[in-house]
């Protein structure tokens, strides 16, 4: 479904992606792991067109992601941002129903609100939360609202950027479980970037290890522990010694 071929991206002298190639089949959950600054977020943002590639090709269903109707393309995606990225000035329900209140997916306000409350319920939040402002919510609740927004328009593809960062282990577990359940019941294709190994085991069908701008290893999550790849081994066991320099 999503095919990334030989992606290159540099910011000045800093070459972040150096020929990244990866295939994410339809209906599967791919988790990209790698150290901080390895280019995971950049890869995700390149797919969405938030960052322009220097070279390489991104194909979604065989079509070049950089060409064609941008709105129609983005309407297929949902994204949960690392910090939630909720709009401060809008109440929670309008954040969740943002896409349903404007543009090609616009619905009547009452219907959009109903859908928003239903999605909030799906992520374990009570309807009373709907009229609060994002600033009135805890970090975990903000993540859940972000998740509700990501799934509000029932997208085919959902991206999760560090979904458990900054959460306590229990809340992280709740978010991981929610992501797994939602992706399964929606039949969506999911791409998650994280360095939380608990998340990886909870969410992933397949795992890809990104290091130095290239995919060092990719395969099913079940084969991750005996991959034989020194980079992946060092990363999943959190060893300071190995091919990945501890000080970057």
């Amino acid at each position, binding site marked *: 479904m999503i095919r990334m071929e030989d992606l290159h991206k540099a910011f000045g002298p800093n070459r972040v992606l150096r020929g990244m190639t990866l295939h994410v089949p339809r209906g599967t959950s791919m988790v990209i792991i790698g150290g901080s600054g390895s280019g995971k977020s950049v890869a995700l943002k390149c797919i969405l067109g938030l960052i322009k590639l220097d070279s390489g090709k991104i194909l979604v269903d065989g079509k070049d992601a950089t060409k064609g109707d941008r709105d129609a393309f*983005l309407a297929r995606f949902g994204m949960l941002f690392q*910090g939630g990225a909720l709009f401060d000035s809008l109440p929670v329900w309008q954040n969740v129903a943002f896409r349903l209140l404007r543009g090609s997916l616009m619905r009547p306000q009452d219907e959009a609100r109903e859908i928003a409350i239903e999605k909030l319920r799906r992520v374990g939040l009570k309807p009373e939360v709907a009229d609060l402002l994002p600033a009135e919510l805890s970090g975990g609740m903000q993540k859940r609202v972000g998740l509700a927004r990501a799934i509000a328009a029932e997208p085919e593809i959902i991206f999760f950027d560090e979904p458990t960062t900054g959460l306590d282990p229990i809340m992280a577990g709740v978010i991981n479980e929610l992501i797994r359940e939602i992706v399964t019941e929606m039949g969506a294709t999911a791409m998650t970037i994280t360095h939380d190994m608990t998340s990886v085991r909870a969410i992933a069908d397949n795992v890809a290890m990104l290091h130095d701008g290239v995919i060092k290893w990719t395969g099913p999550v079940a084969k991750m522990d005996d991959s034989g790849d020194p980079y992946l081994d060092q990363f999943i066991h959190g060893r300071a010694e190995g091919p990945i320099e501890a000080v970057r």
Partner: protein
Amino acid sequence: MNPLSLLAQLGRTVLQTLAAIGRVALFAFGAISHVFRPPFYPREFGHALMNVGWLSLPVVGLTAVFTGGALALQIYAGGARFNAEAVVPQIVAIGMVRELGPVLVGLMIAARVTSSIAAEIATMKVTEQIDALITLSTHPMKYLVAPRVLAALITVPLLVGIGDIIGIAGGYVVAVQNLNFNAATYLRNTVDFLETKDVISSLAKGAVFGVISATMGCYYGMDSGRGAQGVGRATKSSVEAAAVLILAANFVLTGIFFSV
């Protein structure tokens, strides 16, 4: 220092400045073009009208009333040196409408509105809200920039008009209460002396200053660097740029309207 490296440094600075002017010009052109192209966001536009226009009224009113009052006192004191105290109403009117009204309102808008737009948009950028807007199929130029620029284009001339009236009223109160001017004569002299061109130039300056203020706030907000420092720098730069551009535009517009 080597003269060649000095020259190179000068060249780099000139090129960087020209590039920055080009970027701002392209951004301003883009912002104005998005004002006229759908989709439109009436709710955002309504909020911007409130923020730029209605909520700026108190600061504009206070600035104008004190300026008008002080102007009346200054002109009276200055005019007394050559027995010309009677020109207070005329000079207050012309001073407020042609220059002080638009410039002070413009600068107050730069301080209040430009800074708040820049800080808000920069914070949105730093917290990935701009990226979120894009992934939700919403163009940030249309959703964030166009409503603010349009709201400033409409409301700042109105604020300037109100500021002119309040400024003249401030001068009137001081002249009548403290300087023993006849109220009816003061008003007649004010109205008789002002020309349509004075009022039009005042409102036109307001429109230009409004567009400058909103555009600079949006540009520096969207161009912000990372973190709290990035937001702070964006806010500071937006106000500096808006204030300087307002004063420069005022000079140019005054030349256009009143050159002999």
